[in-house]
């Protein structure tokens, strides 16, 4: 059977990772457009919140100790920081220069990364943020209001129809819908099967196809999933390289280099530029950056 705990764990082992239990740590990201880092850290410390800098992130901190919810402080409600899992903070940081750019966040709700993009853009340029689920767009609006984001337009739109917006983009974030991973879902192994994974992988390829159409020639796509399954990650990137006239760029970020040979299949060598973040203190993640191949 193509499902179940043993089945998936043995796949991870084949990919070079030995299963271990995971203790996820809650993390925050300072919204530097709204807060001066040193003074915010002092304020949080005076509330008895103990933080540890996340070594691979500029603005990320792990919560080591807090007597109350970090989602209920004035500082949080005023948008001075966001609660954002550490690995989930990585994708938006892979773009080069974001100031004044036209950015598409194709699968954006509830907006953790939209706010991070706005922060990296210092509220300049424009972010067009799409999501297919209207009720999740309400959650996104709340985040935008709380964090004082000023440069974003949201649409209730399927990312596969992004071209109907009529804009070409400098940067595109594809934080695509995916199968998730066991670190954030206790019942993951019980619920997920390979046909599920393949269904998601197909949707992801359709979103990638549309993204390649609306990307400017010198633009960048960052693709990310919180899935550990190669069908949604390396195999999709291999497919993109072979079908969408894009290449996988080198990135410098947390995580290990992906493999270009998976389950006996030899992939395009540039797939090695993708990064896998296996669950440990963070959840599992997969990230990479794509650029168009110039003629």
């Amino acid at each position, binding site marked *: 059977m193509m499902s179940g705990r043993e089945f998936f764990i043995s796949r991870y082992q084949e990919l070079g990772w030995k299963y271990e239990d995971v203790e996820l740590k809650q993390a925050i990201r300072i919204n530097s457009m709204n807060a001066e880092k040193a003074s915010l850290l002092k304020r949080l410390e005076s509330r008895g919140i103990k933080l540890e800098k996340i070594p691979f992130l500029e603005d990320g901190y792990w919560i080591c100790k807090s007597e109350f919810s970090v*989602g*209920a402080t*004035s500082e949080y*409600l*005023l948008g001075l920081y966001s609660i954002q899992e550490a690995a989930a903070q990585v994708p938006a940081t892979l773009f080069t220069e974001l100031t004044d750019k036209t950015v598409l966040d194709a699968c954006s709700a509830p907006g953790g990364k939209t706010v991070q993009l706005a922060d990296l853009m210092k509220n*300049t*340029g*424009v972010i*067009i943020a799409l999501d297919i689920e*209207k*009720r999740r*767009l*309400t*959650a*996104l*609006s*709340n985040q*935008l*209001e*709380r964090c*004082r984001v*000023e*440069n*974003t*337009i*949201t*649409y*209730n739109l399927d990312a596969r129809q992004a071209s109907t*917006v*009529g*804009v070409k983009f400098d940067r595109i974030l594809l934080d695509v819908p995916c199968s998730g991973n066991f670190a954030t879902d206790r019942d993951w192994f019980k619920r997920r099967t390979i046909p599920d994974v393949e269904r998601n992988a197909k949707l992801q390829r359709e979103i990638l196809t549309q993204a390649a159409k609306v990307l400017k020639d010198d633009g960048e796509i960052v693709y990310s999933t919180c899935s550990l399954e190669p069908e949604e990650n390396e195999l999709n990137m291999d497919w993109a390289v072979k079908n969408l006239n894009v290449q996988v760029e080198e990135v410098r970020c947390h995580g290990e280099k992906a493999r270009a040979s998976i389950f006996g299949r030899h992939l395009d060598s540039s797939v090695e530029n993708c990064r896998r973040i296996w669950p440990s203190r963070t959840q599992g993640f997969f990230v990479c950056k794509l650029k168009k191949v110039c003629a």
Partner: protein
Amino acid sequence: MMEPIKDFARQLNSNISLDENLTVRRQNRFFLLNKTLKPLASKDFFHAGIYLGKEKDGVFFPSFNLLAMIADKKANKVTVDEKTEWLFICGRDVFKRGIIRVIGSMKKGSYTLILNSYSECLGFGKVLSDLHEAKEGAVVKNILDIGDFLRREKSSSKTHS
């Protein structure tokens, strides 16, 4: 189109001016765009630029962004101490003993912004009794506070989980 916003600001003794050309109404919600956003925001957007608030049954409900914009300029403002800040964001009224500073009018029936000691706007309320006459008890009735973000999260997870 801007009247509901202007009328609301007036109640706080503020005469904030927003660029009419960049202010858009989408159903009952108001947004402030900028010159980059304006040509890109088509009619069917869900959210665009700075959310200013919404009108419902003739009553204007401001956003926290609008309150912060008003707080940056001349307006009625009350600065509260840390304990009162916490109580206020939990939905409680402001008591006289928690007030550190008053700017503008504190006349019964007027509206005032509530700020913390960092001058950050926590929400607004209605003055219940003239401050200098008030003895103990609540002097500003909480109308809206930033704890609303948590209440919104809770109510949406109740309806949708």
